[in-house]
């Protein structure tokens, strides 16, 4: 079958009106139930947090200045693997303004604080005793009265090393010829093995398959590189025995608990405050050695100590993302129906498994890798391996390892479609999970809550005029021009998570909200999450406005101070709306239930005689008889029913019954320069379905930002090491972030398929585009080159890689 015939076939499908998905309807329109002055869900409300940011009045970690504050600078290793022979601190300590130098021996003497647990219950060094295990590892720290003096003193510390051979490639590490972690009981670099699906069933499916495609895919190390680096101001008050920790934390409560467990300080004497955060994306989830050294320094010296990373420290030593070496096989029957998936993956952990995954999921939610397609069986196996590289495995604006999963399945489906001579869009439509199959049980055990993949892909095809593009491509090809069209129809899995399966260090992954309504009808709400730019001060206020009819402008949102906010697991993995957003709605509903009792008392009717309307309870059949939420709030403190407690407040700890499964279809058009190998993204249409929308303006912002963070690893970003484990990409001049010039004008569309189990049907959106965009771009580039014999190019697809592929396949122009 030729491509032309397929174009004809696709044209015959007129875009259908969005249809039904199990119990939930798919629509195109954002629902609005409240007037503008209330600004509940669905309104394009301008962000409440913005006035301070646009006037330079944000308060980030480096803006915090306490009386008598000292500054910390860290000495880092120039080797990836070396013995420390000596650390000479004499000259540094003699300098005016230098207060202390802290080494691994000091931390060991202070109660074995030289090692710390990771979020995956592994261990990692805070400061080394006798050996360094990765390039840029913390070796010791200087504390001084001034930032410049601390930096000067750092230069005066003389560390003698005996370099040792480093093992950088995880395949070599698996030979166990050099052991990375000699401190471990088991002398092997193999950290863990994890599997999902059914091996025997998958083998059986492959045995009878008509078509099999195989591909090795490497998703390299990348770095979130938030524009604000990490930092801390630790302030130990000896008289009060109280530790105040300002830190760049996406999970302040979890970090307080970790500090309590590591330091032995009682948890009620530790206060973590996460101020305004200049971007997180997963990089501010782990506890880094710098935080621990800084806190210990303040504890020992009894003065506030500030530590602010510079960009090179951030890029070289903080947690990376990805580093997955994937071998995938996908099979189909004679009719081209996908039937089975077999995946073997090596996860390069670096020197410790310091990933930020839920405890039971060492490879995160990678088993979502059957994607948007019905398969009979899947067999997914992952092995974690130590190497002499910085520890990590955090997300890069994506739910736990979902990007790796989506990239693999979307590349494999595309290769299969091309191999079978099928159009990639038509092939996907033929293999999608159908709307009537939801809730859908995947072969690896997930229960997808709702979806309508066909509606999203058809909408994207209409928006971009897919059929016309395929015709243009054929014409261009005749002239020798290289144009490609790439599709990605991804399924995300977010909102971790249900307590039965999801915890971090044993703490269940619920999240919380506490709402207080003041007598004058204004409100304060505090939540266990922590915005890093997502706009929580606005969206949470809109959720409460929707539920209670209080204007969103009258609802103050606070997060990030563990002394005031209810316990929560924080913001990452697109979990805030599915967990704390749900908790805010549930707490508001508890308040509404009490408000109803007060209204009944005030109106002298029974509760059964009342109905809720936007912002008031009114008497059924007599709508003029009503009490607004503001009148009820006032009465709660001035004239409450005698048999009811005064006040109007509620708390909710929300345990989600399932994860949520946002999805979407992206189509990308690229033009390649056959002379230079440069890839130009000409158009990019993104149709996202994140369920019910709280604020369309903010959702668009999340999607556009996520798309640029998907473009980045697809075309530009990679943390590169040489054979000795030296990081070659330690500045922003080497690690290339897209600017406004590289980033195309994103074209957005949406369908809305609510989550059937979330209190108001939302799913979460912040990371879908980062997950969905890279394979759309990679598929577009390969689509442009397929006729030349190119089957795959690993990301980042740099001009050099395209140029090389062209030369290998005989194109010299």
């Amino acid at each position, binding site marked *: 079958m030729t491509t032309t015939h397929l174009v004809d076939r696709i044209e015959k499908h007129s875009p259908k009106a969005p249809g039904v998905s199990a119990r939930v309807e798919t629509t195109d329109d954002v629902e609005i139930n409240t007037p503008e002055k209330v600004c509940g869900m669905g309104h394009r409300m301008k962000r409440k*947090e913005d006035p301070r940011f646009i006037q330079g009045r944000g308060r980030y970690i480096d*803006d915090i200045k306490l009386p008598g504050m000292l500054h910390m600078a860290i000495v880092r290793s120039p080797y990836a693997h070396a013995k420390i022979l000596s650390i000479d601190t004499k000259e540094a300590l003699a300098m005016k303004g230098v207060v202390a130098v802290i080494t691994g021996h000091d931390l060991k003497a202070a109660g074995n604080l030289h090692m710390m647990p990771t979020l995956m219950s592994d261990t990692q060094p805070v400061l080394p005793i006798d050996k360094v295990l990765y390039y840029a590892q913390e070796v010791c720290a200087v504390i001084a009265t001034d930032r410049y003096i601390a930096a000067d003193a750092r230069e005066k510390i003389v560390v003698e090393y005996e370099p040792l051979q480093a093992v950088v490639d995880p395949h070599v590490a698996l030979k166990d010829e050099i052991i990375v972690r000699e401190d471990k009981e088991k002398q092997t670099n193999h950290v863990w093995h994890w599997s999902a699906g059914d091996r025997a069933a998958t083998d059986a499916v492959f045995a009878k398959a008509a078509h099999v495609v195989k591909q090795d895919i490497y998703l390299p190390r990348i770095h979130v590189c938030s*524009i604000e680096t990490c930092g801390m101001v630790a302030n130990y008050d000896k008289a009060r025995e109280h530790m105040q920790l300002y830190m760049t934390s996406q999970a302040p409560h979890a970090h307080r608990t970790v500090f309590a467990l590591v330091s032995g300080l009682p948890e009620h004497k530790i206060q973590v405050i996460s101020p305004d955060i*200049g971007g997180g994306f997963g990089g501010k989830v782990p506890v880094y050695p710098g935080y621990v050294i800084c806190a210990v320094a303040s504890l020992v010296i009894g003065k506030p100590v500030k530590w602010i990373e510079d960009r090179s420290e951030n890029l070289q030593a903080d947690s990376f993302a990805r580093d997955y070496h994937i071998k995938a096989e996908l099979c189909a029957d004679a009719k081209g129906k996908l039937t089975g998936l077999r995946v073997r993956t090596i996860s390069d952990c670096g020197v410790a498994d310091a990933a930020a995954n839920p405890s039971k999921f060492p490879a995160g939610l990678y088993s979502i890798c059957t994607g948007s397609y019905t398969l009979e069986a899947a067999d997914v196996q992952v092995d974690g391996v130590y190497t002499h590289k910085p520890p990590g495995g955090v997300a890069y604006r994506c739910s736990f390892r979902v990007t790796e999963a989506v990239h693999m399945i979307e590349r494999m489906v595309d290769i299969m479609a091309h191999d079978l001579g099928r159009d990639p869009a038509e092939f996907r439509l033929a293999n999608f999970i159908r709307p009537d199959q939801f809730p859908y049980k995947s072969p690896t055990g997930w229960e997808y809550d709702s979806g309508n993949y066909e509606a999203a892909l058809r909408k994207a095809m209409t928006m971009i005029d897919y059929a016309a593009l395929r015709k243009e491509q054929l014409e261009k090809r005749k002239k020798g021009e290289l144009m490609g069209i790439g599709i990605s129809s991804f399924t995300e899995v977010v909102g971790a998570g249900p307590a039965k399966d999801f915890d971090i260090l044993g703490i269940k992954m619920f999240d919380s909200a506490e709402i207080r309504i003041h007598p004058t009808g204004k409100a304060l709400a505090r939540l266990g999450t922590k915005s890093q730019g997502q706009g929580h001060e606005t969206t949470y206020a809109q959720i409460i406005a929707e539920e209670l009819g209080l204007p969103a402008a009258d609802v103050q949102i606070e997060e990030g101070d563990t002394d005031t906010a209810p316990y929560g697991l924080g913001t990452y993995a697109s979990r805030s709306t599915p967990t704390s957003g749900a908790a805010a709605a549930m707490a508001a509903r508890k308040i509404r239930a009490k408000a109803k009792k007060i209204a009944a008392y005030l109106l002298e009717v029974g509760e059964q005689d009342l109905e809720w309307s936007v912002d008031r309870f009114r008497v059924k059949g007599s709508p003029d008889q009503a009490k607004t939420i503001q009148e009820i709030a006032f009465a709660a403190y001035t004239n409450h029913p005698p048999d009811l407690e005064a006040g109007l407040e509620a708390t909710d700890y929300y345990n989600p019954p399932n994860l949520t499964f946002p999805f979407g279809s992206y189509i990308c058009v690229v033009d390649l320069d056959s002379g230079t190998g440069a890839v130009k993204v000409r158009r990019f249409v993104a149709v996202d379905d994140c369920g019910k929308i709280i604020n369309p*303006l*903010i959702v668009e912002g999340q*999607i556009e*930002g996520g798309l640029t963070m998907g473009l980045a690893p697809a075309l530009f970003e990679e943390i590169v090491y040489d054979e000795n484990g030296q990081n070659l990409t330690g500045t*922003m001049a080497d690690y290339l972030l897209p*600017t406004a010039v590289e980033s195309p004008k994103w074209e957005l569309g949406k369908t809305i398929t609510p989550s059937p189990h979330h209190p108001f049907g939302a799913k979460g959106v912040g990371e879908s585009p980062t997950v969905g965009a890279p394979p759309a771009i990679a598929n577009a580039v390969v689509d442009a080159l397929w006729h030349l014999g190119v089957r795959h190019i690993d990301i980042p697809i740099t001009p050099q890689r395209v140029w090389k592929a062209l030369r290998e396949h005989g194109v010299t122009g």
Partner: protein
Amino acid sequence: MSTHQISLSVNGEAVTREVEARTLLVHFIREHLELTGTHIGCDTTSCGACTVVLDGRPTKSCTVFAVQANGRTLETIESVAKGGKLHPVQEGFWEKHGLQCGFCTPGMIMTAKSLLEKNKQPTEMEIREGISGNICRCTGYNKIVEAIQYASAKLSEGA
């Protein structure tokens, strides 16, 4: 370490201070003057979070010494709103959701304001090129471009 006395105009006010020769302008602004709206993102002139306006030109203050600002006119984000009224560029960023975490925003606003002072009605590509020295990790730039277009329209109305 030798120190030098410098005098300059900061947001319309005359300022005289003693600084070390090596003090970076961004540290002078943040630590000495306590104007913390100007941020540090990279130390290598790559990200633009530290952009201020020096003698009318957007300048990355992380790679300029404070002594180099002697006798010159410095404007930072704190001076952009006048008399409690937002500048059209600030309005545009708020109206069009041109910011998320807010960390790159002051530098981005200083660059955008300078761009519009030179070219009141830039094309989309001129805007994109004009802000290409400022990196935003959150927004994907669409809405920053819209924010600057909003300000451009507003400033042109007033002309």
